[in-house]
């Protein structure tokens, strides 16, 4: 397998005897055992969430037996609080959670990157304005901000994505700004300014390619937190609403009966836990790899 991926085009193109180019972020991250474990965990959970709906034995809302029984004929994990099949609800319950979480994280990282790069490069009043507004937004824990707004408008999927996304953006903007500041200090940016390269080109062509590592790490982190936050919202009854099948909601609905029917709580908790752990392991692998990679930018 390694022989299939080995011949890097640039290594072949370079003159014979030219030193090997440092490997890319993903390949460097893959060297860490934890990245492999993380990819496996995330892969399994995402697979369950994606193909689950197609293989589930029952509809997630269909009543199949007496409520709260761990063993019911024709089911694997028994029934939930109102008699629906636990396995079917579990198989249907991941897709929405994961897609909402990933959209919120992607949106947040995109917005945060734009704000952070502009603030870090333009400096001056724009930087002040962006970062001061950011500070204010950071005074609310993400969960509390979401609860505050939804307490009046009510739980809506678009609102969840927007609120989590914006609150991510504030935090990503800080990271993107810090990373930008480090790059802006460097003379290759000055060199581009000296020849009068337009500012937007400097931001997109000189700065952005040099902060992709911290941004990818941030994306991983934000996906991890998104999953946790959205599951928590559902667990609090402020996320997806009944009768949707959703892991967080399942925990909320069935935790009272955890002693008689543990499966309807254990399955979704395990899935959420493994998903966040897996995502964080990948993130950690990326961040370890990026420390090694970014060192080339600094002196020595």
């Amino acid at each position, binding site marked *: 397998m390694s022989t299939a991926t080995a011949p890097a085009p*640039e290594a072949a*193109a*370079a*003159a014979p005897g*030219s*030193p*090997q*180019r*440092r490997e890319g972020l993903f390949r460097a991250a893959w060297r860490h055992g934890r990245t492999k474990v993380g990819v496996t965990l995330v892969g399994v959970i995402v697979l369950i969430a994606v193909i689950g709906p197609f293989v589930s034995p029952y509809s997630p809302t269909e009543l199949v037996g007496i409520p709260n029984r761990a063993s019911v004929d024709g089911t694997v994990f028994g029934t939930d609080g109102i008699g629906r099949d636990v396995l079917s609800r579990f198989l249907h319950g991941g897709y929405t959670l994961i897609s909402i979480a990933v959209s919120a994280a992607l949106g947040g990282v995109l917005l945060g990157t734009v704000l952070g790069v502009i603030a870090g490069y333009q400096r001056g009043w724009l930087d002040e304005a962006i970062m001061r507004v950011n500070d204010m937004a950071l005074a609310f824990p993400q969960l509390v901000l979401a609860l505050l707004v939804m307490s009046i408008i009510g739980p809506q999927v678009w609102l969840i994505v927007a609120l989590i996304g914006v609150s991510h953006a504030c935090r990503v903007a800080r990271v993107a700004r810090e990373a930008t500041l480090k790059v802006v*200090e*460097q*003379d*290759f940016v*000055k*060199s*581009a*300014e*000296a*020849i*009068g*390269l337009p500012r937007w080109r400097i931001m997109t062509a*000189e700065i952005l*390619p*040099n902060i992709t590592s911290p941004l990818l790490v941030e994306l991983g982190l934000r996906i991890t937190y998104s999953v946790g936050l959205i599951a928590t919202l559902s667990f609090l009854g402020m996320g997806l609403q009944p009768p949707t099948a959703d892991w967080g909601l399942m925990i909320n609905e069935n935790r009272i009966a955890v002693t008689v029917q543990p499966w309807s709580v254990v399955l979704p908790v395990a899935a959420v836990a493994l998903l966040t752990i897996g995502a964080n392991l990948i993130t950690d692998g990326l961040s370890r790899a990026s420390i090694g990679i970014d060192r*080339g*930018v*600094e*002196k*020595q």
Partner: protein
Amino acid sequence: MTIQDTAQHNAEEEERTALRVDGLTVIGRPSDVEIISDISLQVRRGDILGLVGESGSGKTTLGLALLAHCKRATEVTSGGITLSGEPLLGRSDADVRAMRGRAVAYIPQSPASALNPALRLGTQLREALHDATGGAEPEGATAVSDTDARVREVLREVALPEDDKFLRRYPHQLSGGQQQRVAIAMAFIAFPDLIVMDEPTTGLDVTTQAHVLQTIRRMTREYGTAGVYISHDMAVVADLADDLAVMYKGDVVEHGPAARVLADPQHPYTMQLLRAVPLLKTEGHADPAEAAEDAPAPLLRVRGLRAGYGSTTVLSGIDIDVDRGECVALLGESGSGKTTLSRSLVGLHHQFSGEAVFDGEQLTTSSYRRTAEQRRRVQYVFQNPYEALNPRKRVRDLILAPYTHLVGKPAAPDGIVDNALERAALPASYGNRYPDQLSGGERQRVSIARAIATTPDLLICDEITSALDVSVQAEIVELLRNLQRDGMALLFVTHNIALVSNIAQRVAVLNKGEIVEYGDVGTVMSSPTHSYTQALIADTPDFELSVGEVQQPESPSAGTSAAGRD
């Protein structure tokens, strides 16, 4: 000579030897590469051994090994170190700790980072002594006052204040020179047999450097302490050391009395190193060309330039001319404002006023308001080659970017890249490389190639050799000479007066934001009028005539004494 005499002689020699290193080898883990291999050295009491080498030669590894200290993932695999007859290696941690400070002490490269920012100077000085007295419990008040008296005594010796107020200070409240004196005091406080100094004058200006070196020389003599002085700067070491050891890739390639090594180097690497060191040429400059009556207007004319940051003024009343094809040096120490000036001229520093006329047209403050033609004709090379190239772009794209933006999309891009690389003395195949595949010197050549690809008339070089080893520095200087020969004008910004005397036709000496001396290099070097320039020339270490001959191989070698002047 009788046997007894020989034995007695040997014993005396033994008595005089403070440090003996036998076959020392340090390897790195996990690759098992030998960082230093089979090193043997001796230093007598009161003598200083200069340990010279370029980056990667293993000189710092050797220096730390003399204190039985190895950086992470390195270890001593064989050899021995003897300090005044006592073996250092192979002892218990506690024994080694007892010897550190008392038997052997260390003066670090950068006292700013080697002094603990959270502890008062008094604490840091006292603990060096307390532990060096064997960690004995202080016997009542007398011991404390003994400690105290010793701290004050050693501070006096390095010419620092000794009052309580000074002892209560934190490191950040001191100047760089004072910090280094504290580090020296800390090293000498417990009367060590050997002191290891790792480039202790890096980052100090030449005048402070001269004072610090004087202090070190005097203290080692007075204390009878042996010194090992690690440096990349042959000139500094030549001034200071009794013996020299030249290191190259982990080996000591030459070792002997300083005068002998300097006058009559045996190893090719030593010769190369000596030849590369820019020597302060105070005489022998070509006479300045007579100013013709109808001299053409200078390429760059600066008059009454003033620049600053916010409300602070860092430059005022700057007058400089750069003629076509001429190299003008801008000489100044850190904080003199020389980088501000060069950046103003290229449009990166915006807060300046006054006349800055390039080929008849005033330069606006921001590069963005200059014409593309102006930006093309004035190019800039940055100090740090590790930061001047976008690590995500290939050399080829780096070179083409300014050309494409300022001239237009080239019809034959390969020709432009190949030509620029060739003029920067790099093979055309380097176009496909990324910066992380290049050494520091190669990166700086790529920076130069990028700047000359647009065929500028004026090249501004901001300390472009200061991050490079001397041998690489010499190559870059040679490259600049060639460019100048092809008609390019240079504004060469540097802190190194020796370099100025070797490359420039005219020099402007910048001190605290003002030009204190300006004229052709020959005049300024041979008869400086301003006291600052005079001090600069006097304090710059160099090894005088004998190696001046080495520098010009065609002239017959007149190997006379090369002892450093005191």
